[in-house]
């Protein structure tokens, strides 16, 4: 069974592809949704097409499925029209499946199940990465703000941090917001940014 994954070659596509291979599907191709991807897909004639729901090329692909002779008729988007829970889970995970005619439901379901789990895993990974990145940025801002306070007011590091924290508490703001405001103010006043 031939499966096409329409996505940029990146972490998400890799995660999905590896999962499918582990599950025993080995005829898989990742097709980036650029240029003449639709023509390439037509030549491949896949049984199932998996695509990220947020992909801007979704409309183009649906149109192709609606008019394409090579791929025959598009049959159903998603596995089974009556399986609302499954479709809901797929949308949640950000995956949409296009199934080409003549494929039985029981053969597609495991693929979609797996895709859903993999996409969820990817978004969790992404969220953790974003969080780590934000945390790093926050810590840098707080360190710079502390340095400004230590230099301009002769405070020790613990005292500088305590000042930032109490200011934030008094104003009902996050410490990092106060730190950023201080950095901005300091640079406006001509100090070292």
């Amino acid at each position: 069974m031939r499966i096409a994954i329409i996505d940029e070659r990146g972490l998400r596509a890799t995660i999905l592809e590896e999962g499918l291979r582990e599950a025993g599907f080995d005829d898989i191709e990742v097709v980036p949704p650029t240029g003449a991807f639709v023509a390439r897909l037509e030549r491949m004639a896949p049984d199932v097409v998996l695509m990220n729901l947020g992909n801007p090329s979704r409309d183009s692909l649906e149109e192709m499925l609606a008019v394409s002779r090579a791929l025959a008729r598009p049959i159903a988007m998603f596995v089974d029209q009556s399986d609302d829970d499954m479709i809901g889970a797929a949308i949640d995970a950000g995956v949409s499946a296009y199934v080409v005619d003549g494929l039985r439901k029981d053969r597609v379901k495991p693929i979609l199940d797996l895709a859903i789990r993999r996409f969820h895993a990817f978004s969790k990974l992404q969220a953790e990465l974003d969080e780590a990145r934000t945390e790093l940025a926050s810590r840098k801002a707080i360190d710079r703000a502390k340095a400004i306070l230590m230099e301009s007011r002769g405070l020790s590091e613990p005292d500088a941090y305590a000042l930032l924290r109490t200011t934030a508490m008094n104003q009902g703001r996050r410490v990092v917001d106060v730190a950023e405001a201080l950095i901005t103010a300091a640079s406006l006043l001509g100090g070292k940014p």
Partner: protein
Amino acid sequence: MIPLSIAFLPLTDSAPIVAAAELGFAEAEGIALNLVRDTSWATVRDRLVYGQVQAAHLLAPLAVAVTLGLSQTPCAIAAPFKLNDNGNALTLSAEFAAALDPAPRNRIDDPVATAHDFAAAIGLHFRKPVIGIVHRFSSHALMLRYWLGFAGVNPDRDVTLRVLPPSLMTEALRAGEIDGFIAGEPWSSVAVNEGLGEIAAVGVNIWKRGVEKVLATRADWAEANPDALDRLVRALSRSAAWCDDPANREALAELLSRPAYVGQSRALIAQALAGRMPLRQGAEPVDIPDFLVFHRGAANFPWRSQALWIYSQFLRWGMVDPSPESERAAADVFRSDLYRRALAGEGIPMPGASMKVEGATGTPLGAGSHMGSLTLAPDRFFDGRTFDPEAIPAYLRALEIRRDD
């Protein structure tokens, strides 16, 4: 507060929804509105059909197509409120536009001549022109087909219509993948501003009251949640009136220009809201009355006859087979009954009927109404034809170019 989620696409005509959420119109009706931005119409449709959102900013023809189950799972849609009329523009590459009247103003003022020029230009071009449309079942595509069909162009044979989301049109034009596109604002303004193309036609000059986006919900959801729906329609009615008021244009443009909504230049958005469209880079923008209408002239009223006009075009281009069931289902998508119920106590004049002969009004017309006086705006088609919803077969026979030609 009733929590409701609405999916939308980054387009100027999402304004009534954005303003309802941002300016308290929804809150005043006891609704906590959550807006979900998407890039493609397919995603908006799926979110609506599979219940991730309760309502959507949707292409009117797509609402009819989903109900009829064209290209996807059938799902009855209820559209109790039209979000806007008009707002589309056809932008062509400079190379292609060179075959039209040299004065851009003449092109948009005389759609009859421009349609013929376009037809002639196809022959001059070294290949079939590729025109970007935002969806197979979009008002833009139907309007373009109607306009080209008038000049003897068969859109399924003589041009290639390529589907792309609106926000990718300018890039595709820059890359030479398309020779032009028809889309809602701000995408034509953006393309002209960057010198990628010239505006050759505007929707309002093809059909004075071109049906554009609707507020769409699932019919079963509308049935089960009458109170929430009424509140939402009232909030949108007030929001649409606010959006239509020239005094609010600058504020509205600022709101829409934010990255969370349209994310394009505030000046370009404000200009299009005022109906001042740039036709060619560097040229003074021109005034196009009613370029985009949010409220005036009963624009929000979902005429069942307009849903049937959409259905007639689906028949014309072979997108659906004729049947009494399909015809009834299509007319039932536009829920004038729900509009009337929600706005009954609002002092908004209501048309006496829910169907009219489309294209028959040449000058503003006072219409029979239950309350106050109602003035219907001119709704002429550029070719002077009228559409009688009671006589669809005769209407189709009279159109020169059809799919079965």
